[in-house]
């Protein structure tokens, strides 16, 4: 019986965000928008969902009179991502491939 994949992470945009943040110290909203090709509105909604789950921290400041949102992954987010990868491995391991 396979463990269920974390529904918060098993979403294309949220997983993309976490995968980008896992390798960097912090990234701003523009960087995430550029790399994920998401719309600002959708990205904002998904960032808030990840924040509510405690997976990321959002810091809202101003730079040259423009709002600046900085995002960084939390230890809870790192743990959730690692668990997600472990579960994903079960699904895609060669032993679990359908046999012809």
């Amino acid at each position, binding site marked *: 019986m396979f463990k269920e*994949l974390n529904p918060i992470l*098993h*979403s*294309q*945009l949220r*997983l*993309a965000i976490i*995968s*980008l943040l*896992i*390798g*960097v*110290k*912090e*990234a*701003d909203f*523009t*960087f995430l928008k*550029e*790399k*994920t090709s*998401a719309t600002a509105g*959708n990205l904002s909604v998904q960032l808030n969902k990840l924040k509510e789950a405690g997976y990321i921290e959002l810091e809202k400041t101003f*730079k040259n009179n423009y709002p600046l949102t900085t995002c960084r992954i939390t230890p809870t987010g790192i743990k959730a991502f690692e668990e997600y*990868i472990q579960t*994903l491995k079960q*699904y*895609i391991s060669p032993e679990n491939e359908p046999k012809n």
Partner: protein
Amino acid sequence: MEKEFNEKNALQLIEQMIGKAKEDIQDKSFFFLFWGYLVFVAALTNWFLLEFTDFTYHSLPWLVLMPLGGIVTMIVSVREKKIQPVKVKSYVNENLKFVIQAFCIAMFTVCFCMPASGQWQAFYPSIMIIYGIWLYVSGGMLQFKPLMYGGILNFLLAGATYFSSTHQLHLLSIAVGVLGGYIIPGHLLKAKYNKSV
């Protein structure tokens, strides 16, 4: 974006995004090349003045070029921040900042304290040791071997020049050190960056 998202897509997406975050490497070659050529010219001019002229102020190239380098570095750094605001902070870039800070403090200490205390004999070898540490550590962090080899070259030259008493030989050693440690790796780093964009 949410249609038919299965386990295989998830794995591909993770790989793709991790790759995209890595892609965002910045061109770090400017300061290596700028300082490399500056020190190279200063060392060789100083050597030429000592070897072939009777000019009393043979250290003048350092006194002119080094403060000039500091001013240009400050202007370029401020302009870079304005033109290309930092959108992402990688762990490597953040750690490199601490290495640069340690490098500047060590250079400042050696450049001001050693001549003041009259220890000219150890001045250039100490500078090369600091160059070597900076090049070796930053090369390791950037996973760029030519910088690490440049660091080793500077360690070897520093070791050799500790036993040499001629000022001219020290100057030639530092010129070779920056050529192998800054200028050549700087050009290779630039070529690597140009290839990646």
